[in-house]
């Protein structure tokens, strides 16, 4: 394995910034650290770069244990959130900095810098100072500076957060293309789930310093392992349910939308237990219903063009369900109308308690 991080932890006083973080990353893979503010993403990344000394655990890159090494001996390329370009050096000098430190001969250095300037579409800007560049250009210089040294691992701390929304997506995909081309192993930090899902091979969802789940975007969206992950990634409807019957590994559940039969494992789902079901808004079917027969009434419709978010207040209790429909499929659905909701068993995710 290219990168092995084992049981990494950081404790400040009695606060656990990162706890028991383990992941193995294959060559050329891009892993996103995703989580809410303060969950330990930056701390993890800075431990890999060597700026924070871990309280426990190991970081092994290409079989070399980096844990005790100072930053300048680690051969990691870090792109800082604020870019951290050297203000007194030109674009070309900024990019050449790491090559100079490695004693790369002048001729080779110049070629590599020139190639990198072309790759990152910075042609014509080589002699500018950082403050004479736009935010997007600065960001590309920061990436170029980290890439040109051929780091054994590329680390990015919220590299797109200072860019506007449009530029963010194109820059992200561009970075992804270059990272693939160069076969760079990479970890990037973000609190933007769309960015993580669009760019990363795998996503590590973090919460309170710990990893809740690591998996592909599809994995964590369709098969979230914890309630936190289900809630944090995309939108989720949670329903409380009771186990009505259990027959081997098949349970019958009663919930606000009816009865569903699901396969399960483990004792948390024995007969009589209370459990939680999760269903994504786009998996809920909605139909107009006769006033007495319907499960709930439409409270709000938020039209967003390609889709619409429909908030339905359930008749029993005061739970509100979020239903997503195509923007063109709203016939018969109006605020105040009574509706029926249906879910398919295969779209339900089951959580103990």
């Amino acid at each position, binding site marked *: 394995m290219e990168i092995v991080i084992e049981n990494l932890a950081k404790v400040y006083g009695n606060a656990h910034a990162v706890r028991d973080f383990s992941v193995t990353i294959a060559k050329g893979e891009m892993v996103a650290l995703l989580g809410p503010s303060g969950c330990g993403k930056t701390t993890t990344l800075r431990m890999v770069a060597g700026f924070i000394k871990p309280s426990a655990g190991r970081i092994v890159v290409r079989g070399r244990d980096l844990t005790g090494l100072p930053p300048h001996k*680690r051969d990691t390329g870090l792109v800082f959130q604020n870019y951290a370009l*050297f*203000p007194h050096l030109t674009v070309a000098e900024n990019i050449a900095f790491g090559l100079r430190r490695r004693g790369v001969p002048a001729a080779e250095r110049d070629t590599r810098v020139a190639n990198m300037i072309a790759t990152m579409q910075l042609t014509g800007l080589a002699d500018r100072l950082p403050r004479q560049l736009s935010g997007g250009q600065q960001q590309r210089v920061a990436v170029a500076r980290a890439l040109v040294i051929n780091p054994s691992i590329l680390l990015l701390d919220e590299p797109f957060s200072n860019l506007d929304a449009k530029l963010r997506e194109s820059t992200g995909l561009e970075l992804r293309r270059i990272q693939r081309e160069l076969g760079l192993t990479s970890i990037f930090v973000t609190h933007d789930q769309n960015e993580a899902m669009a760019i990363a091979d795998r996503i590590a969802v973090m919460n309170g310093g710990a990893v809740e789940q690591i998996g592909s975007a599809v994995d964590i969206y369709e098969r979230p392992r914890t309630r936190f992950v289900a809630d944090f990634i995309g939108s989720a409807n949670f329903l409380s349910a009771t186990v009505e019957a259990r027959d081997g590994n098949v349970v019958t559940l009663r919930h606000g939308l009816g009865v569903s039969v699901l396969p399960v494992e483990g004792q948390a789902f024995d007969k009589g237990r209370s459990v939680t079901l999760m269903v994504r808004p786009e998996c809920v079917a909605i139909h107009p219903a006769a006033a007495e027969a319907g499960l709930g009434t439409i409270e709000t419709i938020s039209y967003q063009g390609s889709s619409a978010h429909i908030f339905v207040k359930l008749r029993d209790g005061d739970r509100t369900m979020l239903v997503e429909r195509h923007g063109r499929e709203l016939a018969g659905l109006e605020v105040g109308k009574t509706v029926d909701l249906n879910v398919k068993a295969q779209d339900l995710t089951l959580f103990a308690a």
Partner: protein
Amino acid sequence: MTIDLKSPFGALLLALTIIAFCYLLLPILVIVVAPLGSTGYLSFPPQSLTLKWYQAALNDTRYVGSFLTSLKVATITAIVSTVIGILAAHGLTRYEFRGRKFIEALFLSPLILPTLVLAVGLSIFFSRTGLLTGTARLAASHVIVCTPYVIRVSLPVFQRFDRTLEEAAQNLGATPLQSFLMVLLPVVRPAIIAGAVMAFITSFDEVVLALFLAEPSAPTLPVTIYSAVQLGFDPSVAAVSGLLVLLTMALMVIYHIFGAVRD
């Protein structure tokens, strides 16, 4: 905000500005211009113009010799106090230790130190211990006075320095020393130059410590001027002062060329 200088308020502002500048600059003009008069005493405006007093000043070995002494002392002082001041500012902004806040506040507050007391104390100290002689003795004393100035000028700049720049350098393979020399120092260069110029001028201009601690055989320029003024006032003394004003202006120009941020 722009102010219309033709409005009553604008006119008043313009007048006040002109008066303030005259108040600040006219004495300097007098110092430079008065020695151009041909009379044997100072008068302003000068009667008929001549360069003879300037010539006399430049030909007087006392002035030239003590100028060179001052130059030497001020140069040593500027270099030593700049190095110490920068390391101190770096330490104060980079490391956590007991009393750090106190030391920082001490250097950032207006410094009050009666030079006369310091001069007496230092001359007793040096004559008892026999440490350092001649120019080195005076330079060492000036370093005591000038280092706080350097720290005061550079501390806020070091505080504002973005530490991720040094981290970026180290991430790219620079040792901590290399990142200090190649990233931190160039970025804070304006502050360093300002501190060095200030130390230089302060040392060059200093008279009390120099009176007590300079070798009697090699006085500094301010000491020579001081004794000349005491003995009687001939315009060549004023010419020396005029030359000093010009030198200071030259220094300020150099400072602006090299201290200014690169554009």
